[in-house]
């Protein structure tokens, strides 16, 4: 296991894994979308607009899971200063922002027919919006600091500070009286959602998770290569400078 902490071994492992992960993602998403649109029943109140749930709920889960993964990578950066942890952190931020945006947009599209409004300022929606803003701030921080190791440590500190928002998102529907409904899948006493809707939802969720891991792995690989390229171009510039100095 530790062997894969070496970036070169990691690249080899990633090259082997990515095709399989991508294929699994495609199969799961095709199956999930088929079940969503052709098998899962319409809601007796919401009609076919309930289909938005199969995109909205998995992207919300992934938006939070991505932050948790980014937090563990941030610990790796702070504690071990490992370049792989840096790359995992950096690669996760845009993915998390994308899933959060997807969650906000689908939620808004769902809210218009169901609640009669695109947006309300309740605790759940606001805390997810804050999560989106934190992701954007992290991306901004990554793009502003040029030295990658220094950027990684700064981003790690901000990530660890921002993690307070994750329990707030999770429990916002319990602590405050919100328009957004409380948790219906992961709760004591089993899910409050019919099996015919639960299965497509879970398959979509697993599909989204595989999509995340595929994209994350690819982005980590790109980041490692980008760092090597940076190193090489700096070395080349040095060599050129020295050649000029001696000439």
């Amino acid at each position, binding site marked *: 296991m530790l062997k894969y902490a070496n970036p070169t071994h990691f690249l080899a492992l990633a090259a082997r894994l990515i095709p399989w992960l991508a294929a699994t993602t495609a199969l799961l998403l095709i199956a999930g979308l088929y079940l969503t649109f052709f098998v899962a029943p319409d809601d007796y109140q919401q009609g076919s607009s309930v289909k938005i749930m199969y995109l909205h709920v998995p992207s919300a889960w992934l938006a939070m899971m991505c932050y948790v993964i980014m937090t563990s990578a941030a610990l790796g950066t702070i504690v071990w200063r490992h370049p792989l942890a840096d790359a995992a952190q950096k690669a996760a931020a845009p993915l998390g922002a994308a899933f959060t945006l997807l969650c906000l947009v689908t939620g808004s599209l769902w809210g218009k027919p169901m609640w009669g409004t695109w947006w309300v300022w309740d605790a759940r929606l606001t805390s997810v919006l804050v999560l989106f803003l*934190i992701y*954007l701030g992290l991306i901004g921080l990554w793009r*502003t600091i040029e030295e990658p190791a*220094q950027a990684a*440590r700064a981003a790690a*500190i*901000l990530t660890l500070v921002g993690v307070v928002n994750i329990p707030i998102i999770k429990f916002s529907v319990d602590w405050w009286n919100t328009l957004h409904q409380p948790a219906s899948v992961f709760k004591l006493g089993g899910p409050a959602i019919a099996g015919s809707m639960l299965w497509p939802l879970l398959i979509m969720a697993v599909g989204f998770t595989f999509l995340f891991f595929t994209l994350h792995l690819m982005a980590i690989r790109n980041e490692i290569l980008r760092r090597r390229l940076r190193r090489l171009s700096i070395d080349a510039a040095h060599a050129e400078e020295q050649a000029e100095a001696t000439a």
Partner: protein
Amino acid sequence: MMQSSLSALFWRELRIARSVGGGGAMGLVFFLILVSLTPFAIGPDLNLLSRIGPAILWIAALLATLLGLDRLFQADADDGSLDLLLTASTPLELIVVVKCAAHWIATALPLILASPLLGLTLAMEPASLGGIALSLLAGTPALTMLGAIGAALTAGLRRGGLLMAVLILPLATPVLIFGVSGAAAASGGTVPFHIPMLILCGLSLAALAGAPFAAAAALRARDA
């Protein structure tokens, strides 16, 4: 020994804040301008102004606090004194706390004192005026401490000021929410005044306990 070096730092910070270009007085002027711009934007309806007065004052205080904060470590990074502070035997966390305390006294305290006067121009009720000052008093330490994290993260960066606001403003949301609800609760309402106030104090204490470590780690991360 440590105590005298910390008090020397404290007075140094206050002297810098008071001097021209230190930003202490400028923050107050900025606060004044923000508050007086709002009635131009939404119209001189006194009923509306008195209802949203606490919100205007809190947003103005939030922005005015952030305005000066980007200089908290930037000026020291520019002239090299930050490197001296980093190598000092005094713990960096304590240095951060002392700098924040001096900054809070120089920039936030004038805002708090001025807020009831500005509240008068927004037609706020007397109870509300006391409420806004008290809620600012309880909440601005959290803003300063959160801002210190942002200031430490962006010290030495080009265009760090704007980035700092982007990093810190989302985290300041809870302070804003409970600050405004505290000020609003002072003039009646369903929530008793002490509940948002206790939450604000809790946020400030939590920020005071945690932020120095994050800010010090961010300062060390700059060149480690």
